[in-house]
């Protein structure tokens, strides 16, 4: 019996982690489709940023109530992982609560802490579910979330509830069994876990020993299977953020938000143009590490790797969109949707590569136009509100800018008034039609 369950346990573990590894590799490969970007400098600053923003959830706390509730789930999640180690050992070797003996009082403390956090997480989960489905918070009920994103958000909350129920079923029934000396753990008494020592006898006290044993196993296996399910569900979900928030904040932009990157490929050309000694007819030097001869971004491969990591990390919380002036005033732009569409397109490209034995075969689609329209892009005021708001330091703005660059430099597809503005700058050094020689006229005007 115990051999059988050990085998089953090991098989499930290998399958669960194996499947996860396959998908994790896919994500890694997809992110690598982007352009390289140097974000390995200033490592101590980066590490600090990651600790504060991802681990410490610094930016979440601009909205204290959801932050506390989110923190409860997050902390419960982290702490439950400790118990998981025990589950693995017990599962493989057919032992029961292997850590209880060696850890003694600390074990009681640890499991009690898990129980307390689980209750907090359960409260938070119920609050979040009702906020999403009953309170109709605008940012969580926009059209753009209809369909899978909404289901995704609700599903994960339900899984959360199931997981917590499993923990209490497991501990509660085991408590009753231990009271009567029938637990798989030898001896008799109470485990003294803060919550299950009470709810165990209350809820399960009247059940027969056989039923208790079955329920105990149901809770234990349920917990374990839930964890594996959750792990593998991540790939399909906005909940990838629980893993990717860490690298995402590590590689986040540390420069002032107003500082937009200067395209190096452009710098080289401009230098050439401005150099009076340059021979305009000379063949351009061959660049060994030639960047694709494209200015700006038309598709996901033109974006950089951090932007693609951003797309996988986005939690679809919509804080960016709810602070976006364009969105607030009813324009089509939604920074959250920019991130969601980027991820959708990246997934599509990934599937294309999988289906074509490792190479991407043109599918006649691009991120620009097929997913993100110029109308959305031109509505952005580059105000950085979205970047400031994002709890994991994603920059929808950087994607918007790179796509505008493509529109303007590759397709000359700027709105007409912007073309006028640019012509003016080119000709008179000002966005309006004034003569550069008149720049100081204000001095003598009244």
């Amino acid at each position, binding site marked *: 019996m115990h051999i059988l369950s050990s085998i089953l346990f090991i098989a499930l573990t290998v399958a669960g982690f194996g499947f996860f590894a396959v998908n994790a590799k896919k994500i890694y490969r997809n992110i690598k489709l982007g352009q390289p970007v140097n974000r390995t400098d200033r490592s101590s600053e980066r590490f600090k940023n990651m600790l504060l923003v991802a681990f410490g959830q610094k930016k979440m706390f601009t909205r204290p109530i959801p932050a506390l509730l989110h923190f409860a789930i997050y902390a419960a999640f982290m702490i439950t992982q400790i118990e998981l180690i025990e589950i693995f050992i017990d599962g493989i070797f057919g032992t029961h609560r292997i850590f209880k003996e060696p850890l003694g009082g600390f074990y009681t403390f640890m499991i009690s802490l898990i129980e307390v956090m689980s209750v907090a997480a359960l409260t938070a989960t119920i609050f979040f579910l009702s906020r999403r489905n009953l309170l109709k918070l605008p940012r969580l009920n926009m059209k753009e979330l209809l369909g899978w994103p909404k289901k995704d958000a609700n599903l994960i909350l339900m899984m959360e509830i199931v997981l917590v129920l499993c923990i209490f079923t497991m501990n509660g029934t085991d408590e009753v069994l231990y009271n009567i000396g029938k637990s798989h753990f030898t001896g008799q008494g109470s485990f003294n876990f803060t919550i299950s020592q009470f709810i165990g006898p209350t809820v399960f006290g009247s059940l027969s020993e056989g039923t208790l044993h079955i329920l105990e196993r149901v809770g234990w296996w349920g917990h374990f299977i839930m964890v594996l399910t959750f792990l593998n569900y991540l790939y399909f979900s906005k909940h990838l953020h629980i893993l990717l928030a860490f690298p995402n904040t590590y590689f986040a932009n540390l*420069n*002032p*938000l*107003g*500082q*937009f990157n*200067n*395209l190096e490929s*452009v*710098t080289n*050309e*401009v230098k050439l*143009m*401005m150099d009076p000694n340059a021979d305009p007819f000379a063949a351009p030097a061959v660049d060994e590490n030639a960047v694709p001869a494209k200015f*700006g971004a038309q598709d996901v491969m033109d974006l950089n790797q951090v932007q693609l990591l951003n797309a996988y990390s986005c939690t679809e919380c919509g804080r960016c969109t709810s*602070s976006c*002036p*364009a969105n*607030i*005033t*009813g324009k*089509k*732009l939604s920074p959250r949707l920019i991130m969601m569409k980027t991820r959708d397109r990246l997934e599509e490209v990934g599937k294309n590569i999988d289906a074509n034995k490792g190479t991407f075969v043109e599918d006649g689609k691009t991120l620009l136009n097929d997913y993100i329209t110029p*109308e959305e892009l031109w*509505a*952005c*005021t*580059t*105000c*950085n*509100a979205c*970047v*400031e708001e994002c709890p994991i330091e994603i920059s929808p703005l950087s994607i918007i*800018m790179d796509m*505008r*660059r493509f*529109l*303007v*430099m590759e397709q000359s597809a*700027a*709105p007409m*008034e*912007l073309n006028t*503005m*640019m012509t003016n*700058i*080119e000709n008179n*050094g*000002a*966005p*309006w039609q*004034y003569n*550069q*020689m*008149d*720049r*100081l006229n*204000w*001095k003598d*005007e009244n």
Partner: protein
Amino acid sequence: MSESLVVPTMAEMMARGEQPEVLFWVGCSGSFDDRAKKITKAFVRILNRANVKFAVLGSEEGCTGDPAKRAGNEFLFQMQAMMNIQVFDGYEVKKIVTACPHCFNTIKNEYPGLGGTYEVVHHTEFLKSLLDDGRLTIEGGQFKGKRITFHDPCYLGRANKIYEAPRDLIQKLDAELVEMKRSKANGLCCGAGGAQMFKEPEKGNKDVNMERTDDALEVKPQIIAAGCPFCNTMLTDGVKFNHKEGEVQVLDVAELIANAQDL
């Protein structure tokens, strides 16, 4: 308003063999926009009063390239930037002050990557340093007790984390500084940035500057203070649209200081 402005150019200073303490970068708006020119002049009056040795570039100044860059035209931006950097370096410029957060941000953050590194300060920071050093003194004067709200320009606030200098100045006027519900890092854009100033907005149900003006009017200010010529225009339009121009003034922080001094 009687004394005439003293506005030396870099070329004149150079001819005299002098180097100014700071270059005043006027910017396109400050040079050509009628409303913004008043801000430029108010700032110059303060500089004159505080005996700051400054100079402007005059006809040697050209757009920083900010609107071109935000529109996506990196070529045009870099051309402008390199031309300006050549001029700065020709005059051995070390320190630049400007009343435009867009110019400020671009020269400060984006020029260094193209070879132009300078100390760049926004005029609100510069004014504050003049006060701190005792080179300028202000008394509340006509603004004592007035309700003033400050609109954070995105390119000063969020983009460069400058929130306190303009507020400190307003408080120095003995005015009552009231905050809008969206302020500082959560401030709402005026709608002009990212080259939006130069085009019609996309279809929506409201213009951004109207939304922002509503934020401001909600706190019932007598004055809406701004630190950016573009924000100033956007908010002025919004106030006019609400027919409140009789009750609510939109003024740049430099104008507040200059007016308090009767300059």
